[in-house]
């Protein structure tokens, strides 16, 4: 039965190769799969060693996927207005099927992602993996680190509770001290900066954290930042391959 299924055109159109355990099929498994072909067909032996890589980059990516999925589900139940935001959180926590699970997972995965990104950077530094030819990918990585912080920070406001509004108030209060661009920063007053036209005003959509801020942070959190982060992630992964795969000691042999 299964054998005859395998002979159909439909099956063959989906699965391009047979599954016998041969070198060729193993290679095809990677090359023919849109997700797996991110990988090379073969890697240096030490790349399979968790002790070397700590797996932090991969975990970060997995957490990003978890966050995307749970985040999209949460968007169904959440309205970014001061009138509804908190009520919707209560609804989510009390009533929505699997709502608490989705929200908890989104929050904890976000914390975990910040953690793993930091550890990933720590590992990359310790193995010197930013050294030529991977300098630029390190720069992309730093940008991704910043984007992760911004994603987490913008999401922090969305529950619209005391924790979020004051954390964001504390965070954004510093913006008013920006040199030149903040009304309390060095040379800000001399440049005509006031509470209602400085960089913080642009960030918050007002002179203090309020309903417009919520909308700004929501749009940033759900569209702007994820798109930017995804683009940089694509560059990051692509550069990993193009810069010679995972870093390793120079042994005279070129990886590719």
């Amino acid at each position, binding site marked *: 039965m299964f054998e005859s299924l395998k002979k159909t055109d439909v099956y063959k159109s989906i699965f391009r190769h047979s599954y016998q355990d041969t070198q060729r099929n*193993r*290679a095809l*498994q*990677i090359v023919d799969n849109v997700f797996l072909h991110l990988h090379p*067909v073969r*890697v*240096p*032996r*030490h790349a*399979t060693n968790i*002790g070397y890589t*700590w*797996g932090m980059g*991969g*975990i970060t990516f997995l*957490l990003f996927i978890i966050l995307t999925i749970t985040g999209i589900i949460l968007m169904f139940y959440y309205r970014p207005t001061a009138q509804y935001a908190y009520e919707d*959180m209560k609804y989510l*926590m009390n009533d929505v099927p699997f709502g*608490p*699970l989705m929200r*908890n*997972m989104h929050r*904890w995965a976000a*914390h*975990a992602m910040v*953690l793993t990104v*930091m*550890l990933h950077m720590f590992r990359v530094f310790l*193995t010197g993996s*930013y050294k030529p030819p991977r*300098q*630029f990918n*390190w*720069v992309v990585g*730093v*940008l991704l680190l910043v984007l992760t*912080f911004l994603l*987490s920070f913008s999401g*922090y406001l969305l529950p619209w*509770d005391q*924790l979020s*509004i004051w*954390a964001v108030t*504390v*965070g954004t*209060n*510093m*913006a*008013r*001290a*920006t*040199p030149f661009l903040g009304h*309390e*920063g*060095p040379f800000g007053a001399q440049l005509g900066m006031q509470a209602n036209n400085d960089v913080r005003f642009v960030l918050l959509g007002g002179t203090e954290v309020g309903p417009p801020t919520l909308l700004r942070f929501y749009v940033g959190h759900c569209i702007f930042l994820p798109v930017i982060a995804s683009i940089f992630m694509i560059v990051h992964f692509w550069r990993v391959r193009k810069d010679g795969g995972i*870093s*390793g*000691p*120079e042994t005279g*042999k070129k990886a590719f």
Partner: protein
Amino acid sequence: MQNLVQIISKPDNIPIVLLTFSVIYFSWLAWTKARRNDRLGTPVEATMDDKVQVWPYLVRVEFLMSIAIMIVMIVWSVALNAPLEEPANKATTPNPSKAPWYFLGLQEMLVYFDPWIAGVVLPSLIIVGLMAIPYIDINEKGNGYYTFKERKFAISVFSFGFLILWVFLIFIGTFLRGPGWNFFWLWEKWDPHYVAVLTNMDLSEFLGIPTHLPDNSLNPVAFIFGAVCVLGYYSLGGIYWLKKRNTDLMKKLGFLRYSIISFLFLTMMGLVIKIFLRLAPTAIGLNPVKYVWVTPWFNV
């Protein structure tokens, strides 16, 4: 003690507990690996540079890790509810009001610096500095394996910055900073009525130079004194350059790279010095230092 349990069991603080332990573990792991490699001479990684098939040997590990992470996430999410506090209200300020945990290092810096440094200049310098690393670190060794011997300066500085100035300050900000951003030991109760001593003085005042004249305008002597202190501190890098400029290393680095390194390094150490100036004097009965340099536009 009850207080400690309360802080730790706050669901939002779990990541910091995780951070503390994972950073300690991974530092230890990296250190042992580096030590081994340094002892062997050739890194272990170099002996494992032949190729293996990604399918199945790498993919299966990745998949296994994914399952493990999913287990962790599910258990964590079912067991602990994400916090949801009172509805947002501008009229009542919680005490302490803290930034998200990953910014607590910067919030801690607010104790020692004005917001324009702690909140804007410092984060910008961290980002720029991090991005600059590949271009200012011209040491070709240590690429792709754990080592300490071959890149002592780079690893020491980075580890100091990451472990002490970032992770440790997050730890302090979470566990040791209570109401009013006052310092409490782990076993002390967070008393909202705690009253701290406020006797900070500007550095110039220690030498009897008042920062402000009786008519409340800035004392030019104090201004010049502060400028000398700060600029003199940064000129240490130049002095070192003049001394060592003929060494191979310096020649290889070039002036531009050296200036960037020295600026970033001195800035980082500047943080430590300012923290020291704030904390140490009290130990010998002096008042803490508030500002080193007061200008009409900004204070350092």
